[in-house]
């Protein structure tokens, strides 16, 4: 008995030492996103996917460089730009070199400015900004900088692909555009009006913004949409705003397709359930159904085993980790972010979710395949929220907006 205790104590001690030794050399990524408040579910699910991606793709395979592990450090920004800047400072003070953020372009705009300023003033503690979901086009156009990399397609690219698909549907003659009242919502609306005007004679019968995260009941908006006679709705809404709007529009008698950016996962798919079948459509990168590769299937199954309630609804997070680790390997260092950023620029990468990825060097916008999928329970291998419902890819635009113009004038460090 005594021996067993001693053995246990020794092995526990060695575990602690082992863990702390590995801990000291971890490459840390600061995850700055909402982990409380109305958008907590979106942020928390993103965090789980990051943590899983790092463990599954890097740490369990022996780490990178000389066996260094990657680690995600979570910071709650309560979706406030001001809070995010405080958390950014805390992360930098802890010696973290990589910042991941995605929810809200308002936050991303504040972060990219602050990081640019910080990197100019503190060449010894520069950081990279891995933007995995904030899609305001300005971030890779007039507000672009060398430190910012966007792994999601921006709102213009998504809208370009989405409108390509929409104009092929002869039933759509009138469209209603509705979104959250901030930079991203406005960018979606502007892109939709612009591209529908260029590509077709589809009429925009409504174009409006509502306060973000504050609307209790979307019924009045749904009434306007129905009475406008629209055949389709376009919205960039996310989180509780997406579910509230979608449910209300469907309940109040709208029959046509609802084209969305973010109506999946985080409980939204389950909550729509049968009512949203064949109505909710999604424009996104990285389709899950049908799954692209065996590696992706194995990854998804491992994720489900670890987070039975979770979904991989932002598969680009795995691309972020894959591309970052490749860049770090190629640069041979994780501390010199200029070297890592130079490797990320222009990188071509084969995603396990299908297709080629290309980090466009002139604006640091990732170019990738875009898919329009439908919310359904038929032919779904990987459902969301354990609901039986998921997103099935209907059409694909390859390397969407590869040659789209950018106003970015990239200033590279000397």
């Amino acid at each position: 008995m005594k021996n067993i205790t001693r053995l246990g104590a020794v092995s526990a001690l060695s575990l602690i030492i082992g863990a702390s030794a590995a801990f000291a050399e971890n490459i840390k990524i600061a995850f700055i996103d909402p982990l409380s408040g109305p958008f907590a579910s979106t942020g928390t699910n993103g965090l789980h996917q990051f943590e899983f991606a790092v463990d599954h793709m890097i740490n369990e395979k022996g780490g990178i460089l000389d066996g260094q592990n990657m680690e995600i450090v979570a910071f709650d920004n309560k979706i406030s730009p001001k809070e995010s800047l405080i958390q950014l400072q805390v992360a930098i003070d802890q010696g973290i070199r990589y910042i991941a953020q995605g929810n809200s372009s308002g936050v991303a705009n504040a972060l990219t400015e602050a990081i640019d300023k910080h990197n100019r003033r503190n060449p010894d503690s520069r950081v990279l900004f891995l933007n995995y979901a904030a899609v305001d086009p300005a971030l890779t156009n007039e507000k672009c900088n060398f430190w910012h990399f966007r792994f999601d397609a921006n709102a213009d690219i998504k809208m370009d692909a989405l409108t390509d698909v929409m104009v092929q549907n002869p039933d759509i003659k009138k469209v209603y555009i509705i979104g959250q009242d901030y930079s991203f919502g406005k960018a979606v609306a502007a892109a939709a009006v612009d591209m529908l005007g260029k590509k077709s004679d589809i009429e925009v019968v409504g174009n409006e913004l509502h306060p973000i995260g504050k609307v209790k009941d979307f019924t009045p908006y749904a009434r306007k949409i129905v009475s406008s006679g629209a055949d389709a709705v376009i919205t960039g809404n996310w989180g509780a705003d997406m579910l509230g709007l979608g449910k209300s529009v469907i309940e109040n008698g709208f029959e046509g397709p609802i084209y969305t950016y973010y109506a999946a996962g985080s409980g939204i798919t389950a909550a729509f359930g049968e009512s949203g079948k064949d109505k909710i459509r999604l424009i996104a990168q990285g389709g899950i159904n049908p799954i692209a590769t065996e590696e992706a299937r194995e990854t998804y199954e491992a994720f489900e085993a670890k987070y039975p309630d979770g979904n991989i609804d932002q598969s680009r997070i795995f691309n972020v980790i894959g591309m970052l680790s490749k860049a770090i390997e190629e640069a041979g260092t994780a501390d010199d972010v200029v070297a890592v950023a130079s490797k990320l620029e222009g990188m071509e990468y084969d995603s396990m979710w299908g297709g080629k990825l290309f980090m466009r060097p002139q604006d640091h916008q990732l170019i990738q395949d875009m898919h329009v999928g439908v919310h359904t329970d038929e032919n779904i291998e990987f459902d969301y929220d354990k609901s039986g419902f998921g997103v099935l890819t209907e059409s694909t635009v390859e390397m969407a907006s590869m040659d789209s113009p950018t106003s970015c004038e990239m200033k590279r460090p000397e």
Partner: protein
Amino acid sequence: MDLILVNLIDGLVTGLLLFMLSAGLTLIFSMMGVLNFAHASFYMLGAYFAYQISIALGFWMGLLIAPLIVGVMGAGVERYGLRRVHKYGHVPELIFTFGLALLIEELVQFIWGKNQMPYQIPDALNFTAFAISGNSIPAFKIFMIFISVSIFIGLLFVLTKTRVGMIIQAALSYPRTVEALGHNVPLIFMGVFGVGTALAGVAGVIAGPVLGTFPGMAFVLGSIVFVTIVIGGLGSLWGALVASLLIGWITTFAKSYNIAMSDILNGIGLSTPENLDDSVFRDLWTVTSPQIADILPYILMVLILIFRPYGLFGKRDA
């Protein structure tokens, strides 16, 4: 014209839902002088409990049982929490309810997670009751109206026509005298608190499937409930009803019609500045009614506080 009727119905649903929350809150406030910050949290608990019960026993049992559980919890909070804090004055009471609200939100996240819950409208009510020129009115909304109106009538009856109601009303204004007459005032307080929170629970049960069941649902509705009881007059059931309906209709109509501020300003004789981008009042000129719909109740509250501080139906002088 058709749309006006539809909006009237939608506003009525929103207003009555608000009423179920504010009715309990206004009674609790006038009786104990406690602004119960956790009131909307009980609304959230109602929705979550009902969702959990509906999985096992169906929606109708949820509607029956969930408010009871919430009411008992509310009574427990009054008996073992508020009553102990009461002797230290109002500020500790406020802080207590505030902390309770945070606690309940964290607890809900701990148990159910941060995701939206798939709490659905029961199949028996999942159809279109009728349609007005393409705008369908779901049967569930009619059901919501029915439930809240019956609760209002029931409350009004109990408060004005029964012995219990008379004692409650007396205890509202003269608790010491009522106590001296041999009534158990602390028990009445506990009962009112329990019933008030149970009402919030009912609101949660029937609002959950429509407005979404998620940890932020209390936060989204929290402040507007206080605005309602201030506008209506503290302690007045009629005031709570009128204010709730007023807020429901104001916000619904403001969102349904795109009234632009520039039209109003032009209407009163001001001309739009030629170069809006340079104008300091650019935001004022470009604002539309849907954008400010949700702050209109707050503006109304400020006006009420200035011109009629005791609210529309309040009896006490401020």
